[in-house]
């Protein structure tokens, strides 16, 4: 590359990015700021620098990116590989660039060659990142309605993804149980994962029509929402046979089947949606040649990532924090945690920031019925607490709902419950504020 072009495309953005990163770290916060600075100076920065790792894996989908990519990273590290990985929340292009910056020399060469780079990537940003990073593997987890105000529709993302399937040299690892995803990935170089375990509650359904011809899909089995075993009566589009699948035996024990050979699967992760994350990670590991014993060990020891399911000690109680961001995640989380035999103290925190989704109507597509049978005391907070309150009121929940509209109210509420455990279900920015607030209180302990 000619010098003046190199200065413009690489050196200048790099300097600006690193400087802003330094400033941001001194002031506190702003993980994607350096990437944003670089991106505004050169949007195609990633295609102008050298390759960050020998092999690059991108993980995308509406739910489960963080958990799936963390599983893959742990499996790779356990096998002795060096892995570059972006933290959750940095999954737009600018976030990925921010992750690369500290490892780049001023001329645009990486200081060390990582064996692997595993990046979780936002569904909408995926096409551009595939173009620029030229990955070896792309994992397509699922497509649910999420942050509708950003994407408009599930179909839009699906059509965008179709344009990179069939890219030479790219292996696609796709959730075959999701008709939208299965319709994207076709042809050579595709592997499928699935789950044949029925989740609690049916939950709302997004896709009912065949993505290929538009007729209704018929299901012989639903794992949850629109995931399951489907077939189109008109054009024959159907669930592909999964290469890796999780099943449950008659004793309720999970097993993972790789090309029809079964192995016992132990995990502390809860909910059918997490079985999909495990299935995906194991399929990726199998493709990369990772030892199965190592993979199963990683899964059984796996602790969930930042905020997704986290436990901390605060306000004199054990506080469980389970992030919710869309109808499916919310329905599944409530169904997985709430049990009529063991009622729990629950806090719901609904915000409407950009990262939460400014359109909160998604709560009306969630199945909140577990709140009717599994709750001791119910607290509702966040900026859109009243909307959540209305959702609960119109779901016919006769019980008492208490509003906690300030952090002080929340603190007092948690302290006041009977028993030791409290379960908080926040949306993204509410979770961030919660953790920030708790970390300032004396005596808070975070367990990772």
């Amino acid at each position, binding site marked *: 590359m000619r010098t003046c072009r190199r200065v413009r495309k690489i050196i200048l953005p790099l300097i600006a990015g690193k400087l802003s990163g330094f400033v941001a770290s001194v002031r506190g916060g702003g993980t994607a700021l350096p990437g944003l600075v670089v991106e505004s100076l050169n949007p195609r920065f990633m295609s102008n620098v050298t390759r960050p790792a020998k092999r690059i894996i991108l993980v995308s989908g509406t739910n489960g990116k963080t958990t799936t990519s963390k599983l893959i990273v742990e499996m790779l590290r356990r096998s002795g590989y060096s892995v570059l990985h972006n933290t959750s929340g940095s999954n737009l292009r600018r976030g990925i660039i921010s992750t690369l910056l500290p490892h780049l020399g001023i001329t645009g060469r990486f200081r060390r060659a990582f064996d692997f780079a595993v990046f979780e990537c936002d569904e909408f940003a995926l096409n551009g990142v595939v173009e620029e990073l030229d990955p070896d593997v792309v994992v397509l987890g699922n497509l649910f*309605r999420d942050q*509708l*105000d950003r994407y*408009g*529709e*599930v*179909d839009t993302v699906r059509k965008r993804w179709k344009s990179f399937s069939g890219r030479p040299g790219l292996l696609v690892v796709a959730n075959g149980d999701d008709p939208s995803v299965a319709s994207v990935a076709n042809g050579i170089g595709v592997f499928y994962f699935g789950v044949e375990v029925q989740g609690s509650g049916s939950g*709302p*359904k997004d896709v*009912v*029509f065949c*993505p290929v011809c*538009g*007729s*209704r899909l018929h299901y012989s089995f639903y794992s949850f929402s629109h995931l399951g075993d489907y077939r189109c009566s008109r054009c024959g589009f159907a669930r592909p046979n999964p290469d890796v699948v999780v099943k449950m035996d008659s004793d309720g024990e999970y097993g993972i089947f790789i090309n029809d050979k079964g192995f016992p699967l132990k995990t502390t992760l809860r909910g059918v949606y997490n079985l999909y994350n495990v299935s995906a990670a194991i399929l990726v590991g199998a493709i990369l040649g990772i030892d199965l014993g190592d993979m199963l060990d990683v899964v059984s020891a796996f602790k969930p990532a930042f905020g997704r399911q986290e436990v901390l000690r605060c306000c004199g109680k054990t506080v469980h924090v389970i992030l919710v961001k869309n109808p499916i995640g919310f329905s599944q989380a409530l169904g997985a945690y709430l049990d009529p035999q063991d009622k729990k103290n629950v806090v719901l925190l609904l915000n*409407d920031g*950009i990262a939460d989704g*400014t*359109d909160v*109507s*998604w*709560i*009306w*597509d969630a199945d909140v019925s577990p709140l009717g049978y599994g709750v001791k005391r119910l607290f509702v907070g966040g900026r859109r607490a*009243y*909307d959540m*309150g*209305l*959702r609960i*009121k*119109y*779901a*016919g929940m006769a019980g008492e709902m208490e509003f906690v509209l300030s952090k002080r109210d929340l603190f007092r509420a948690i302290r006041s419950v009977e028993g030791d455990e409290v379960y908080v279900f926040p949306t993204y920015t509410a979770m961030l504020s919660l953790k920030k607030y708790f970390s300032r209180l004396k005596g808070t302990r975070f367990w990772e």
Partner: protein
Amino acid sequence: MYALTVVHLYPNSMNTYGDNGNIEVLKRRMEWRGMDALVKFSDVGDSIPEGDIYFWGGGQDISQSVVSSDLVAKSRFLSEEAKKGKVFLLICGGYQLMGRYYITPNGEKIDGVGVLDMYTVASNERMIGNTLIKSSLVSPPTIVGFENHGGKTYINGSPLGMVEIGFGNNGSDGTEGMVSGNVVGCYQHGPLLPKNPHLADWLIEKALFVKYDREVKLAKLDDELEWRAHRFMLRKRRGRFLS
């Protein structure tokens, strides 16, 4: 004992953006007043049962063309129900398909039921954000919602209201939605009714009037939470209005 039948049109084919919450609201507000609310469903390939209130929500583009073919056989029934004064609540896609026609992004013209004298043209711009509508249909005269649509609708008749914040029907003429007799259509998600209980009750009252041939006064409900939620959205206009 008063009873109303609510018919949910295309509940599986067109049910994005939480619009089915509107059915919950209608149902509960009747039950809380000791009335019977029966909800029936009618989707692609089903016949439409007779109802007092018809609800039709929004959907994704792929659904809209499948539904529009299904609509051909059902248009006449729906037009006649509207002529009889039956109540219709139409949101987004449902609103568009009850108009005269809809021009798709490919330039294809899809016929609507034709009950509302309006037409819609798909556009590449997406009109998204919290909205505030001034409407003389209800008291107090404010309606709060959230819109998310690419279609631009041009009406020949009375709007539901005028846009104070947001885009409304087409982003240029300041109108939002349309009302024709007891047919109410608009682009408001949210869903619409939980934070606008006065509109929910307007729909219920009209349906009772048509069915029982006299005015039925609705008992007041404890709507404190609804109005707190409504007023919270009004307050947003003073500061930065999130889009």
